[in-house]
């Protein structure tokens, strides 16, 4: 093997060639500001609306309910901060979980400093929320429930439909961070009783710097970024036309190939999980065995530390991660792994493998063989191993 084996698709995906090609004309030729009055810009407005339909279609929404943002993080911030403010007169209580992405958690922490009360639901050892816990957590003052559809580290998929139904029955708005789920597993905002949903372009072979927030018709949501009249006055800023077009194209492709691709990836994933658990001792799979993203495998190897493992994999041209990419600079063990009850030192030795459309069985074999050698070597170095 002499090419990079990229196994970190949960961190980001390459933008597909056809997606880039779809974007290109909007940089240099059809570059007009879609809000301008002349014909030359009219085509850009149309291109945006086409993309909006494609995004809406992917989650069973109406295109009037889709608002473009600069990415999943902005979508999460907007949904939570916006609802918190618009429904303040109804209450100040928000429910989320301990294993959300930092885009949700840090936003909730910010709200806590500003007079809101946040309940962080615990999850079980597989990372699932117990619907009864949600039911019990709802109070008179609860205005928003935000629970991610699928976790970015351990891949666990929540019983969203059930959780959504509980929210609905209680008359509480329900937001879900679906950044890791869209294009990987089927989503229908109506069947799942979702009121707000966050999506990101670069997790589904679209460009970075673009995302969307689905906002169910009728929901009050103040604009988060104030400015010109773009996005029906809900999101200021000149529209990022090339990225919107690319996002639309990418989500269309992802939805089209979803069924076959997720089946294929799930098979690779299962093979990997089976082999690793069988051939490497003192090793566990994190996340739910069944309710998990088709492309995610997350292991903990006792007695070894994650960064060393990643660097050694990197030396073998394997790109993987230990937790979420955006905190890999941090020294704290993953809050998600702690959230499912792993002790610190085991949480430290975790490895996330997230598959993509290009990955093959050969690559899995190479990964497995590499892991066996590397884990053994690191354990040899470890003062914990023979203790």
């Amino acid at each position: 093997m002499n090419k990079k084996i990229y196994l970190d698709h949960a961190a980001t995906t390459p933008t597909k060639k056809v997606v880039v090609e779809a974007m290109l004309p909007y940089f240099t030729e059809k570059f007009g500001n879609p809000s301008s009055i002349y014909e030359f810009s009219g085509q850009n407005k149309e291109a945006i609306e086409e993309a909006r339909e494609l995004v809406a279609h992917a989650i069973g929404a109406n295109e009037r309910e889709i608002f473009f943002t600069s990415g999943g993080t902005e979508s999460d911030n907007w949904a939570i901060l916006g609802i918190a403010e618009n429904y303040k007169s109804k209450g100040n209580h928000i429910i989320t979980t301990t294993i959300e992405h930092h885009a949700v958690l840090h936003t909730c922490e910010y709200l806590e400093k500003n007079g809101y009360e946040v309940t962080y639901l615990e999850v079980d050892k597989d990372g699932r929320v117990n619907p009864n816990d949600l039911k019990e957590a709802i109070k008179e003052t609860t205005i928003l429930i935000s629970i991610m559809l699928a976790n970015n580290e351990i891949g666990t998929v929540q019983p969203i439909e059930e959780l959504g139904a509980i929210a609905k029955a209680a008359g509480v708005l329900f937001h879900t961070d679906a950044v890791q789920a869209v294009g990987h597993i089927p989503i229908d905002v109506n069947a799942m009783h979702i009121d707000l949903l966050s999506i990101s372009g670069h997790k589904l072979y679209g460009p970075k710097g673009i995302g969307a927030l689905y906002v169910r018709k009728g929901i009050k949501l103040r604009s988060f970024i104030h400015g010109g009249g773009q996005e029906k006055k809900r999101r200021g800023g000149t529209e990022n036309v090339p990225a919107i077009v690319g996002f639309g194209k990418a989500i269309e492709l992802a939805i089209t190939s979803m069924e076959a691709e997720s089946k294929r990836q799930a098979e690779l994933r299962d093979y990997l999980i089976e082999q690793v658990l069988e051939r490497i001792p003192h090793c566990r799979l994190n996340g739910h065995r069944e309710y998990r993203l088709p492309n995610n495998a997350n292991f903990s190897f006792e007695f070894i530390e994650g960064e060393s493992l990643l660097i050694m994999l990197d030396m073998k041209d394997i790109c993987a991660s230990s937790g979420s990419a955006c905190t890999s600079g941090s020294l704290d063990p993953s809050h998600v792994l702690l959230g499912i009850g792993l002790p610190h030192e085991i949480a430290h030795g975790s490895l996330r493998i997230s598959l993509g459309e290009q990955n093959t069985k050969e690559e899995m074999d190479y990964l497995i063989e590499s892991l066996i050698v590397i884990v053994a070597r690191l354990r040899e170095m470890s003062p914990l191993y023979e203790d």
Partner: protein
Amino acid sequence: MYTKKVMDHFQNPRNMGEIEGASGVGTVGNAKCGDIMRIYLDIEDEIIKDVKFKTFGCGAAVATSSMATELVKGKTVKEAMEVTNKAVMEALDGLPRAKVHCSLLAEEALQAALWDYAKKNGIVIEGLVEPKPFEEHEEEEEEF
């Protein structure tokens, strides 16, 4: 993110292993990141004849333990006292800012091993203080 020297010592760590019946053993842990380092010293006539380490930690932790053991091997106990985290970092051509604490771990482990040796032999090493359980070293970080 790491220098060539760090990568070299990470890939080919020197003196990795254990010494049975070592003259001194020091184990330290970093509360901040949860990493652990242990250094074994074999000392004869105040000279460090042999040294080994085991590390559960990041790439920088492995590299600094490797470099620290290299730097003290064959040296006198007194000379070993000069192998500070700074000296180790310099020998490695530097570390990223967030990884400075890893080199402190190496210094601490070395001194803990020396302290163990001194205690066992009832001697006093000038400048050496009793190692306390390793405390958090706050990284330099901007606060908002």
